[in-house]
């Protein structure tokens, strides 16, 4: 079963190193020609740059905004918490075609189609639910008593926040940021509608080429995206491991 789940991904990665002129498995020879084509092509380069730029905007905005929201969410007592959270999760539930069209409608009226920052902000909305869920569980680990103690010792709210809460929650913040970046980096539909000609991201360019013809360069781009995902997941796993280690040490 596991093999079947991994197979498509593994095969695409192998194909990306194919030395053949078209997609054939197994490849008869190996080469880096498709990567050379991907990274040597101005349009793909530009798409990569757009993806990175938009991803960074989405990552920074959604992590910051999400962090404050998650903190307030945990520290305040109020009714209807579950309902509120379920409303904040809405961007992943509403079919993305509808979200994309609605955002396209607004961006069109505002003349913001093809605007990197705007697209980054729209991605931040999509990433927000993931960020919130991760940060809620990360901040759950911050003992409110530590904050009370620091406050009681005369620390100001801001100081306590910066010196106590943020350092303890840092690994969680980092993994939220990583996943937010990934969510934006992989997003297709909203980019498809909002990117215009200028801000085309990697997934948008893959989509455009797939609708014309399945060519091996896409395998190289896909392998690149898979590698990005794997790297980010690995970084996140290491972060989490460190966190548990640190907890164990403090427990001793």
């Amino acid at each position, binding site marked *: *079963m596991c093999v079947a*789940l*991994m*197979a*498509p*991904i593994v*095969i*695409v990665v192998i194909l990306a190193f194919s030395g053949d002129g078209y997609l*054939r*498995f197994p490849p008869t020879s190996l080469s880096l020609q498709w990567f050379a084509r991907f990274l040597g092509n101005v349009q793909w380069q530009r798409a990569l740059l757009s993806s990175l730029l938009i991803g960074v905007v989405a990552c920074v905005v959604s992590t*910051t*905004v*999400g962090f*404050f*929201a998650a*903190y*307030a969410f945990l520290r*305040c007592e*109020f009714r209807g918490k579950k309902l509120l959270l*379920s409303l904040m*999760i*809405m*961007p992943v*539930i*509403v*079919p*993305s*075609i*509808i*979200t994309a*069209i*609605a*955002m396209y*409608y*607004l961006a069109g*009226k505002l003349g913001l189609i093809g605007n990197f920052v705007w697209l980054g902000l*729209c991605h*931040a*909305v999509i990433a*927000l*639910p*993931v960020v919130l*869920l991760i940060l809620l*569980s990360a901040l759950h680990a911050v003992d409110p008593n530590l904050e009370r103690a620091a406050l009681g010792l005369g620390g100001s709210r801001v100081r306590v926040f910066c010196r106590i809460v943020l350092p303890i929650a840092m690994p969680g913040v980092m993994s939220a940021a990583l*996943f937010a970046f*990934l969510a934006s*980096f*992989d997003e*297709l*539909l909203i980019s498809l509608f909002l990117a215009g000609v200028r801000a085309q991201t990697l*997934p948008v360019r893959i*989509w455009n080429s797939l609708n014309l013809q*399945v060519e091996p360069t*896409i*395998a190289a781009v896909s392998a690149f*995206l*898979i590698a990005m*995902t794997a790297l*980010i*997941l690995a970084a996140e796993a290491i972060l989490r491991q460190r966190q548990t280690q640190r907890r164990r040490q403090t427990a001793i």
Partner: protein
Amino acid sequence: MLLLMLPAWVMLVGLFLVPLVLFFVRTFSDFDGTSAEFLEQARDLLFSQAYLTALATTNWISLIVTVTVLLIGYPIACYLTTATGIGSRLVVLSIVLPYFTSIIVRTFSWMVLLGEHGLINNTLIAAGIIPAPLPLMYNRLGVLIGMSYVLLPYMVLTLYAAMRAIDLSLLRAASSLGASGFYTFWRVYFPLSLPGVLSGALIVYILSIGFFITPALMGGQHDIMIAMLIDRALEVAVDWPSAALMSLTLLVVTMALYALYYRLTDIRRLIGAR
């Protein structure tokens, strides 16, 4: 303190809620003609052959995908709750890596496998099992395979969260009282996992009915789902009222199912309840 939530709300309202509301309200209010004409056009659209067919296709595909994903995901989730060591880590990796890989990459990889000259057809022909390529893609089968692959992680993560909460000593109690392995599973474990099954099925169904990318790339002309119809109304016909009307129906159904999901589940399970 509650003010700290303000930026998140500004973002959600300004970039999500306002566009949605504006899209519907403005599209409907921009309609040229009387409300009677509008209702007539709405009725024509919602009872048109194309729409009804897409509706049936969407529900049918979503249903089969949900069942498929449940049948495949249940044993995997079950295994994950008990397994330890390298084997379970590999399984986790094979669920999580695809989960976070771009949908378009995952769809592309299945296109490579299932195409006319794809890996599966080439292998089968080379082995002499079939004389000509099987039609595995650009039809219903392709859509079902692609969508199941994309949605499987949601099911596994939801089931896993629910199954981890099951008290395994109940199973030992059942077998010590003389219940067979199958009987223990069917009368003790399965009923206890049922809430997870329900919420997993719901979330997969909710995500299925709004699916666009995979069916658009891997489907044939008989596999038009609602989301594709909406896209076509806009891209091909530039017909905003129709697109808005179909979006509204899809949105209402999605919200109704989400309300049901909300009653059944702790939302944190969406990411596997860490």
